[in-house]
């Protein structure tokens, strides 16, 4: 019985913006969910269970919003589940939903992640309304300085990541930030917000939602037969570690290393750089691209920046990273992880439109949270056995 195959047959997302003042909370999550159902050629009644993920409830001032959103997402009379694992939550939400199918509990599951940051003030809520906080940029800046120092990376690598992701975003119709005249010079001349991170090397604060429909093997094969390519989940894993203790390395967190090793082992991957076709990683600040490429074993230690510098991670490079424009271009926190996971699935389904990587068959997605201590990752592929032959 254990571990049956699980396919992704529907993906939807909202237009991400700094303020989606045209929709209510329910309207916003339904916009993404409806698109995912349409993509799957399903209706609300076809879904057996719903999993919802989002980051702190204090951001919108709705406690346990899965209660209010139960009927908005068609879960009246059904199981409704709520996940919260900080910034990694969107990824964890996808994984929890996939487990409901893989365990045989349900046949068709809808996962939804969202954040409507404009309803409140995230900076204020991070301090729990009790005063000033450093902001996420301030908290992560020393980790990035540590990376630059230990890897010997040229200082232009961060801005190069920003330019690449912002160019990719121009090809993604749902992206929040669309900066037509983006250039290295423009990034480097933007204000230094959390030294060493500049304004244009940082993620925005977004309203938005993402939704994914999961189904069992029969459902995946039926979608394929109908000409709607599914994405198959080859592997998934989560890891957490404490935030602060002597000996912890937050620049290359052990949880990030272990989580990647776990999914490679599950998927039978021994050379990720060669066996994966592209990656969609949680990069809210530019330097996290080379940091995660290393922690996830895609680049050698202290070599992640070389992949950026050589252009390998560009959309037309050998190993494209963050084809969607990434978190740097859209950051509805609770949805951000699921957007990464969904982008990887879109790539192997061949439905990524202008940001499609030609011939992508196996893709990796990752989300992380809190003090770089919560990790969720999966590998999806265009078939259940992509490495055969």
């Amino acid at each position, binding site marked *: *019985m*254990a*571990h049956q195959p699980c396919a992704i047959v529907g993906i939807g997302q909202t237009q991400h913006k700094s303020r989606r003042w045209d929709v209510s*909370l329910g309207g916003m999550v339904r916009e993404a969910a409806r698109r995912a159902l349409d993509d799957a050629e399903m209706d609300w009644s076809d879904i057996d269970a719903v999993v919802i993920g989002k980051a*702190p*409830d*204090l*951001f*919108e*001032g*709705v*406690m*346990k*919003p*899965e*209660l*209010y*959103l*139960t*009927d908005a997402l068609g*879960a*009246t*009379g*059904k*199981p*409704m*589940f*709520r*996940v*919260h*694992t*900080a910034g990694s939550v969107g990824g*964890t939400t996808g994984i*929890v939903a996939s*487990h*409901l199918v*893989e*365990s045989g*509990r349900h046949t068709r599951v809808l996962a939804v992640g969202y954040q409507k940051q404009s309803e409140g003030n995230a900076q204020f*809520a*991070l301090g*729990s309304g009790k005063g000033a906080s450093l902001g996420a940029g301030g908290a992560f800046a020393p980790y990035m300085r540590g990376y630059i120092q230990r890897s010997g990376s040229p200082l232009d690598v961060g801005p190069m990541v920003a330019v690449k992701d912002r160019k990719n975003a121009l090809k993604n119709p749902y992206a929040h930030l669309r900066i037509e005249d983006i250039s290295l010079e423009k990034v480097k001349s933007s204000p230094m917000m959390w030294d060493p991170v500049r304004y244009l090397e940082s993620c925005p604060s977004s309203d938005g939602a993402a939704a994914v429909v999961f189904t069992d093997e029969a459902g995946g094969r039926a979608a394929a037969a109908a000409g709607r390519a599914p994405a198959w989940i080859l592997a998934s*894993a*989560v*890891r*957490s*570690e*404490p*935030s602060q*203790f002597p000996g912890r390395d937050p620049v290359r*967190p*052990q*949880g990030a290393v*272990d*989580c990647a090793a776990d999914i490679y082992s599950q998927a039978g991957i021994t050379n990720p750089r060669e066996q994966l076709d592209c990656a969609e990683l949680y990069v809210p600040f530019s330097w996290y691209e080379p940091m995660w490429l290393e922690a996830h074993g895609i680049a050698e230690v202290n070599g992640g920046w070389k992949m950026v510098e050589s252009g390998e991670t560009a959309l037309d490079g050998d190993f494209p990273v963050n084809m969607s424009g990434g978190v740097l271009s859209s950051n509805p926190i609770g949805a951000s992880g699921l957007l990464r996971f969904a982008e990887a699935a879109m790539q192997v389904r061949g439905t990524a439109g202008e940001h499609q990587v030609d011939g992508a068959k196996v893709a990796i997605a990752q989300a992380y949270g*809190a*003090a770089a*201590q*919560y*990790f969720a990752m999966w590998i999806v592929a265009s078939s259940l056995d992509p490495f055969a032959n």
Partner: protein
Amino acid sequence: MAARARTSDDIAIIGWNISPMVRKTDKTEAQMLLEAITGAVGDAGITRREVDFTCAGSCDYVAGQAFSFVQNIDAVGAWPPKRDSHVEMDGTWALYEAWVRLLLGDIDVALATGSGRSSTADPNLIYPAEMDPYYLAPLGTDAMSFAALQARALIDSGAVTERQMADIAVRARRDAKGSDYAQVSGDFDADALLATDYVRAPLRKHDLPPITDGACAVVIARADKARELCENPVWITGFAHCSELHYPGMRDLRRADAITSAAKAAGVEEAPVEVAEIQTAFTHEEPLVSSALGLGADTAINPSGGPLAANPIMATGLVRVAEAARAVRDGGKHRTLAHSTSGPCLQQNIVCVMEGSD
């Protein structure tokens, strides 16, 4: 009764711990959890290192802090890093996620926790935040008011009387005298209780739960591991959850169909239930939930005293699981169940059915 033959995919509860139930703790939530987890893994005869997956249930709004669960990871022993998750729900749903995770078959042992310090703020000011943010929260609609609205609907329909509600409180407080985890217990007289003023008519103080700080941890394992570690595993034979629509005015408050659905999916009706530990934090909910679960008069309801004796928000449901498991392992019962709920007027419900080894 003839229990279904166990397979290697069966999962059993092999240990648990319930923290002291107090009105106000001097511990942080992480400290409460640290002790509960140490107790639970000790009860299971293992160390934290042998736990393959952990899932916690807690709530930022109860803690009064965004990302409050992040500090609680310190209690888990997540070094080396651990497979771990968190739900902004009662620990019973954390146990559900852990149970589903073990069903996948690649790992053997999981730990679920629930924790909350209800003492941090006035529940009447916190709970409006979980109601419809446009039509209900701005009216300050609190959990007690919703419970009272449901109580009135049940009283008006003849499903329960204020006398029966007082009798339930008397029984719960009397039963709680035998529990180490009760905050409210003792011998009371129903007539005396009924002579007291309403707090929120038709509810009196005895119809309401206490405010409790507490935590609970439960360890589960796949069959082979469970048998290796434990002489008398408590098998989870059914586990399911189901939700009503949110806005109470759009529901028939005399019914609890989501509980019936969850009970059916968990197989409650397949055999008699000897003990039911149910999250009825308000007296009038007991007959409604019992009947929706399909329980008969021969089922003992909340012999621990239930949530009327101690109500550690976010752990109350998981404590029900631990108490129902205790009834099997230590109390010699064959088949028990636990129920947990969240949201206004029993909106969201989960049911876990447990059986002994024979």
